[in-house]
């Protein structure tokens, strides 16, 4: 009788532990998915800003049709992208075309002084920053989740219930945000 009770007790404890770990993993998964949706909101906002930006720039930049078109095209690709892989590629593409647009805009003093342009530029800056911060947060959450599902004993549970490692939101351009320089 006593051994039976002990076995029963052990089983109950193990089941409770498994349930606890499983729930913790689910919580982490929800949390990084939620962080992804935060990025999505900001990306969408950037997509909405671009047509206005291109429209305003068109009035001044008569000789830069190519740059403007590449921005529009990159935007369309980003909007159409569905899988995370495609999305990352398209967004990186969009970021770099936008940057070249801004670089070209430097040559048009009238455009730079335009009130609408100034406002759009500020909106774009803040959106880019928000994307950056949201990305930072998302990556933090992903690394927490990935660490959790790969460390023992969570790894057993993760293997049993098919918790897949999540992907980081990487940037092509490492110098994207000015990382503090290390000099010796």
């Amino acid at each position, binding site marked *: 009788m006593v051994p039976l009770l002990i076995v029963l007790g052990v089983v109950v404890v193990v089941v409770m532990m498994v349930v606890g770990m499983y729930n913790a993993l689910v919580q982490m998964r929800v949390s990084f998915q939620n*962080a992804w949706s*935060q990025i999505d909101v*900001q990306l969408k906002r950037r997509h909405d800003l671009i047509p206005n930006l291109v429209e305003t720039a068109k009035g001044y930049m008569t000789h830069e049709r190519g740059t403007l078109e590449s921005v529009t095209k990159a935007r369309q690709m980003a909007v159409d992208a569905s899988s995370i892989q495609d999305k990352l590629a398209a967004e990186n593409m969009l970021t770099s075309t936008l940057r070249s647009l801004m670089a070209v805009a430097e040559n048009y003093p009238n455009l730079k*002084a335009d009130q609408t342009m*100034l*406002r759009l530029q*500020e*909106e774009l*800056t*803040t959106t880019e*920053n*928000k994307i950056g*911060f*949201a990305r*930072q*947060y998302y990556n*933090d*959450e992903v*690394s*927490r989740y990935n660490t959790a599902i790969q460390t023992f004993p969570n790894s057993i549970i993760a293997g049993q219930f098919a918790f897949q490692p999540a992907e980081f939101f990487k940037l092509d351009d490492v110098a994207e*945000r*000015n*990382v*503090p*320089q*290390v*000099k010796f």
Partner: protein
Amino acid sequence: MPYSFVEIEQSKSRSIQWSLAFLVVLYVLGALLIVWVVKYYLFNSVHDRFDGLRISPLSLLDLPTISWTMGGALVLSAVHWFASTDALIDKTLQYMSGRIADPQKDDERVFRNVVEEASVATGGKYRIEAYLIPTAAMNAFALQDFQGRSVIGITEGLLKRLNREQLEAVVAHEAGHIATGDCLETTVTSVVFKAFDTICDISRRMLFYGNISGGSRSSSRRDSGGSFVVLLLIVFLIALALKFIGYLGSLFISRQREYRADAMAVQLTRNPLALAEALHIIDQRWKGAGIPGENMDAIFILSPRQSAYDDNEDLFSDLFSTHPPIKKRVGILLDMAHAKEADLDNALNRAKSRFETLHPGPAAQTSATLGDIPAIPVPVPLPVPGGLGMPVGPGNASLVFGKPVIPAAKDQCPRCQSMLVPAVYEGVQIKKCPSCQGALVGEMDVLHIVATKEVQFDERIRDLARMTREQVVVLRSNPFDQIYDQKSIVCPSCLDVRQKMTRRFINPKYPVEVDKCKICARVWFDRDELEILQCLYESDQLAAVKN
């Protein structure tokens, strides 16, 4: 690093429990003391009259007395606690006459955006509101209440003097306070213990001025009998004790949290230099001593009141100061940036150009402002002896940041070590710094510049001037802090290290901050200050003509 919110929650509730416990103990002890003294006095006065009976003082505190007193004290402290923590954000903001940032104005919209960015950076866990305090002083603060409502506030004077990256750094610092949870504890502690300070303030004004709002000393009140004065004096002494107790509140606030918030700001913005620049800019100016809210100094990024403790690191300073030494903070930030002096110069120059993006000037249509006057040659900055090229550690960093530069040669800018260049402004010969836009002007020349009306001012200067004007009212009601003669920088003309210039308001009617040399009477204006003074004077003239 994901913020471990569980740990944060635990540590913050613990610290708040401490200050609640402290408050209760304070009330109980205070009440016991008062009851005991009153009882002893009454007993003696009664028995003196009838039988001269004496009693051991301690036996007056019997069990019923103690329990009644303690019960009363508990109720009182509960009332105090709930009264001060209820709607604390709204009350505090109202006390400081804060208003929500207006999305219709360009710079205020940028501020809102930056605050939203910070809110995104914390994973959207906090909805942070952006508030402005209408004053020309320069400071920023964060507030949080038990419901999780968070506010980041900045004074208009600071908003108008920072570029976007510096603003981001300041807001990220405040967001760091919110995310690590120490914002809640400083807010609650400040609000709870501020009550004592406020009582002290009011009684002080009644004592010296005969009315709460300050204003001029009324002579009729002084003649109204000695008993009134004695009463006020007693109130004042009690209030002084209370003020000391309120001061103890800062015991619960660690200086370390400022370092942590700085680190958090760097983690978010990846830009330690911008934060160092912002701290430097704030440190050099009037941080808001004398405005409502100054007694809650723990919530601000730099303490509004200058205190001797702030620059030291001994145990006593650690206990009683809410902020670490500015030099050390800036030194740590510069170390993070691995900044060299040359980088720093570049950074400051970059900062200057970026300033225009946040505050776009009125383009070319108006005549030149102080920043635009063509400098007469001397474009190559002279080499600084022992300076350039040396790595900037915390020690060397203070050459530029944290404490005033000691000019090595005549006419070297006391702020940034560039060479001052002669220039003509409003028909007057002045010396101007090409990099930080400061100006050295002779005393008489100031009058001349102010009286000349050639230059037009943009909206930013007019806003700053308007705020400076409104400041006069506030400062008048706070006589102790009105003028401060603080030793500041070495005069670039006299180069006398012992007779430094003093930082002060140029005159009580126009509270514009300047540095004045006692020897040659020259006046050093930092960026914008001369223009604000001119703008104030002109609008006065205009008003006089109209009447």
